[in-house]
C-alpha cells in the first residue's frame, strides 16, 4: 500500500517537474509568437484533452513496445522497451498532462506586459535575463496553477497507466489502478479507503491551488 502511494507521488512529482521544464518554452512561444500557424501547434498540444485516456494509452503501448517507434528512437541510448517501466509511465504522463501545463502557462505569459520587457531590454538585459527577471515573476500564478494541475491530474490518471503500466508493485502500480483492481476483485472495503484518501488529497490540492493563487494575486 505504502509502496503504491510512493510510486504515485514519485510519478506525479517527476512528471510535474519535467513537464514545467518542457511546457515553459512551448507556452512562451505560443503566447508571444506572431505566427498564425502556432495555433496548429497549440491544437496538437491540446489533443490529449479530447482523446479518451485508454486510447492514448493504447497507442503509447504500441509506440513503447520493443518494436515501437519510440523505443526505436531511444535504442541508441540502450532502451530496449519503455512499456511496463517507470520511465514509460513518466513519458505517458507527460503526454497525457501536457495541456494542463501549457494552457495556464500560455495564459500567464500572454499577460506579461510588453512594456516591462522592453524596459528591461533598454537596460541591457538579454532575452534569458528578461525572461527570468520580468516574465517569470509576472507569470508566477500560471506556474503554480500548472504545477498543481499537472500533479493532481497525474495522481488521478488511470486509463493511460492501466494500458502501459502492467501493475508491477513498486514500479508501475499506482493508487488509481490499485483501486480498480480492488473493485474488480470485489474488495470494496480497501477500495473505499484508498478512494477516500484520494478525495481528501484532491481537496487539499485544490484548496492549496486556490489559496496560493489568492495570495500571489494580492501580492502582485
Amino acid at each position, binding site marked *: 500500500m505504502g509502496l503504491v502511494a510512493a510510486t504515485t507521488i514519485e510519478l506525479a512529482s517527476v512528471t510535474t517537474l519535467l513537464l514545467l521544464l518542457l511546457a515553459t518554452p512551448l507556452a512562451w512561444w505560443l503566447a508571444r509568437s506572431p505566427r498564425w500557424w502556432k495555433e496548429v501547434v497549440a491544437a496538437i498540444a491540446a489533443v490529449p484533452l479530447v482523446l479518451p485516456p485508454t486510447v492514448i494509452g493504447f497507442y503509447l503501448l504500441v509506440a513503447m513496445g*520493443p518494436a515501437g517507434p519510440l523505443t526505436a528512437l531511444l535504442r541508441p541510448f540502450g532502451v530496449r522497451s519503455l512499456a511496463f517501466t517507470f520511465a514509460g509511465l513518466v513519458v505517458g504522463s507527460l503526454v497525457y498532462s501536457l495541456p494542463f501545463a501549457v494552457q495556464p502557462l500560455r495564459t500567464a505569459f500572454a499577460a506579461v506586459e510588453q512594456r516591462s520587457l522592453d524596459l528591461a531590454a533598454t537596460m541591457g538585459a538579454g532575452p534569458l535575463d528578461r525572461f527570468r527577471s520580468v516574465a517569470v515573476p509576472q507569470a508566477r500564478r500560471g506556474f503554480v496553477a500548472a504545477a498543481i494541475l499537472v500533479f493532481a491530474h497525474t495522481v488521478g490518471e488511470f486509463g493511460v497507466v492501466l494500458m*502501459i503500466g*502492467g501493475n508491477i508493485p513498486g514500479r508501475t502500480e499506482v493508487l488509481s489502478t490499485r483501486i480498480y*483492481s480492488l*473493485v*474488480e476483485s*470485489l474488495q470494496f472495503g480497501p477500495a473505499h479507503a484508498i478512494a477516500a484518501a484520494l478525495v481528501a488529497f484532491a481537496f487539499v490540492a485544490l484548496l492549496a491551488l486556490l489559496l496560493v493563487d489568492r495570495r500571489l494575486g494580492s501580492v502582485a
Partner: protein
Amino acid sequence: MRRLILLALFAAAPVHAGETVVAVAANFTEPAKAIAAAFTKATGDTATLSFGSSGAFYTQMTHGAPFEVFLSADADRPAKLEADGLTVPGTRFVYAVGTLVLYSATPGLVDGQGAVLKGGSFAHLAIADPAAAPYGAAAVETLKTLKLYDQNAPKFVTGSSITQAYQFVATGAAELGFVALSQVITVPGGSRWVVPATLHAPIEQAAVELKTGAANPVAAKFLKFLQGAEARAIIKRYGYEVR
C-alpha cells in the same frame, strides 16, 4: 410519406417478437454475437447484448442494473448474485469452459511444452489480474503446479482483464503471456502452448437469469437456446469447451 415510413417500421418488426437484455463478459463477445444472431433466426426474438467486465456488471447488477441474463467470465459472480437473492433460482449453469494458452506474437518463442518458462529468455510475462480474472488465477496456478512461479513472478505484467493481457502480448510490448484460446484461435502465426487442463482448476464461465428477467419469457428462452446444440457448436468453434 410519413405514413409510408410508419408502415415500413411496423412491417419490419415481426409479430409478437420479444427482446431480452443480456450482459456479456467481454471475452465472450464474438461467440455471443453469433449466438444472438442464431437465436433471432431461430425464434424471431432479439437478445440485446451489452459487453463489459464481469466485475463491473456484478457491481451494476447489485445496484439495480436492468439486465435480465448474465453471461459471466467466471463462476463466482453468478454464484454471488444467487447468494444475494438477485437471480431466478435454478437457472445458473456453466455455459463454457475456457482453455488457457501461453502465447507469443513471435514465431518460435513458445514451444509446444511450455519449456520457455524454464529458460527465462524474456523480460515480460503478461497475465490477467489473478484476483479478478479466472484466466489470471489459472495462469498462476499453472506456474505453481509446474514449480515455476517464483522464477517467473518478477516478470509479470498484469492486465486488468484477459483482454488487456492479450493486448500486451499482441502489441509485442510483452514477449509472451497467458491468454485465452478463444482470443488467439483465429489468429495465424505467433507461437503457442495450449496449457493442459490438468495443470489448473477448470476456467468455468457461468450464466444465470436475473430476477429482472423473471417476467420476460424471452430471457428464459435465450438461456435455453444457449444450452442447445446449435449454441454449443458455436461456443466450441470459438475455442471453449462445453459440459
